[in-house]
């Protein structure tokens, strides 16, 4: 069985956040809702100073605390390792959100869906069409664009990333691009000490 995962190549990432907008587009995300964020970290003292751009999203943990705490069973893991939320089952208790060490989850509110991206209370056709996917009050997060994956496509953020800093593929396949990168350049997982066993790795 496949085990889908992602590698972020920090040498490549330029912090442009095209991924964020690409994701918002693919998933019709309301204002302030992010399935992915590219963070920046600055360190050092002038003039020896550096900035790193650090893309983040749901790590599709192998041992996902979000799933463990979910009282309704709405959070589940697909056979290919993608951690999903079933919007029909979710009750919006947000237990998962405080259980996820990565702040990868967000609740969609009725308010944000009604207010719309322009904050006017009127929805554009794009929003009217796109917001159908959401059940107000439920938890949402990155699902690795599971439907695109099913269709054999890369996730939207991966496709748009101008620097190919996001590398997606099957971690069980030792020859997949992400597997090779992790091996060759020493992949690190975020907050490894939390024992969530992320399927998202960083190489720098």
């Amino acid at each position, binding site marked *: 069985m496949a085990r889908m995962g992602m590698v972020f190549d920090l040498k490549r990432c330029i912090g442009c956040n095209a991924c964020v907008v690409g994701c918002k587009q693919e998933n019709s995300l309301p204002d302030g809702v992010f399935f992915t964020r590219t963070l920046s970290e600055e360190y050092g003292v002038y003039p020896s100073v550096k900035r790193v751009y650090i893309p983040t999203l749901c790590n599709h943990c192998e041992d996902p605390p979000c799933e463990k705490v979910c009282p309704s069973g709405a959070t589940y893991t697909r056979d290919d390792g993608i951690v999903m939320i079933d919007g029909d089952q979710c009750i919006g208790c947000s237990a998962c959100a*405080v259980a996820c060490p990565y702040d990868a989850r967000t609740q969609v509110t009725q308010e944000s869906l009604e207010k719309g991206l322009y904050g006017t209370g009127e929805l554009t056709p794009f929003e009217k069409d796109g917001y159908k996917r959401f059940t*107000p009050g439920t938890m949402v997060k990155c699902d690795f664009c599971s439907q695109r994956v099913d269709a054999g496509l890369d996730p939207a953020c991966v496709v748009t990333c101008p620097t190919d800093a996001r590398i997606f593929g099957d971690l069980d396949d030792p020859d997949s691009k992400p597997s090779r990168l992790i091996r060759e350049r020493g992949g690190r997982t975020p907050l490894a000490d939390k024992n969530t066993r992320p399927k998202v790795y960083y190489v720098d």
Partner: protein
Amino acid sequence: MSPNQTTFSGDSFQLGYRFQNYWDFHMATAFFFGELGAGMFLVSMYFGFVPGMVLGLLCTGVGKPYFHMSHMGVPAKSWRAILRPDRSWISRGLISIVVFVPSAALVVLDVLFGWSGGGMLGKLVALVAVASSLLVMTYQGFAMSHSSAIALWNSGLMPVSSIVYALTSGAAVSLALSVFFDSTISLVLSKLVLVLVAATAVVLLSLLHSSYHGTVGARQSLELLIKGQFARNFFLLVIGAGMVLPILALWFGGASILSSLIAAVGVVAGFYTYRLLIFKAGVYEPQISFSARLGLSRG
């Protein structure tokens, strides 16, 4: 402070500590009512003190669900929370409430009307009520302590603090009620409250201490509580009103109406503030940092 220190990033795209704001005052209030009510019920039940049992039952049976529901994104489906007791403390907690409320009600009815006639069934129901009240008191603590996400919460002391706070506040409110309804138990209750407040203080101190020695996230939370934006309320309400004031009042005032009331109000205010602040001071740790790796010092 130089801004390129890892700091609180809010929802900006800066690596840093991020505030937990999913569990807000609704949840804090629900937690508060659940624990207060269960504690009050248990203490009062021990003393056969019906007003305390009833109020406790109401807190847990009405106050808690009300605030849970107002927090819930899809309240209409909230029954679903019961589905995964195998792994979720929320499910377990919900079950414990579902068990607690009727069993506690039966206990109250038994005390009032003696329906069980002191028989096995009554004892069994009482046992169930006690057991479920203990679960109600602690499951939230367990839910929090199981969260490795928020380091402040990720401590075995969380359920302990839940239980001591539940009992302390339960006892304090029972004490306040007792001075009006059944002053014979007031003195014992006042002593109990004194002991429990002291115990709470010890637990709280241990919590702070373990946060200090905990992970970076716990340390940040601690800083928020004792130095940062929450310090005022923490010292004034959690420590001052919630601990110092009741101890002084009960120590010097005994079980008088005034001192009992002061102690109860102080303890409850302190507990409620504690619940709120423990939520607010909960932070997610920076996901992954590269500064240390490159051996550069922070500015």
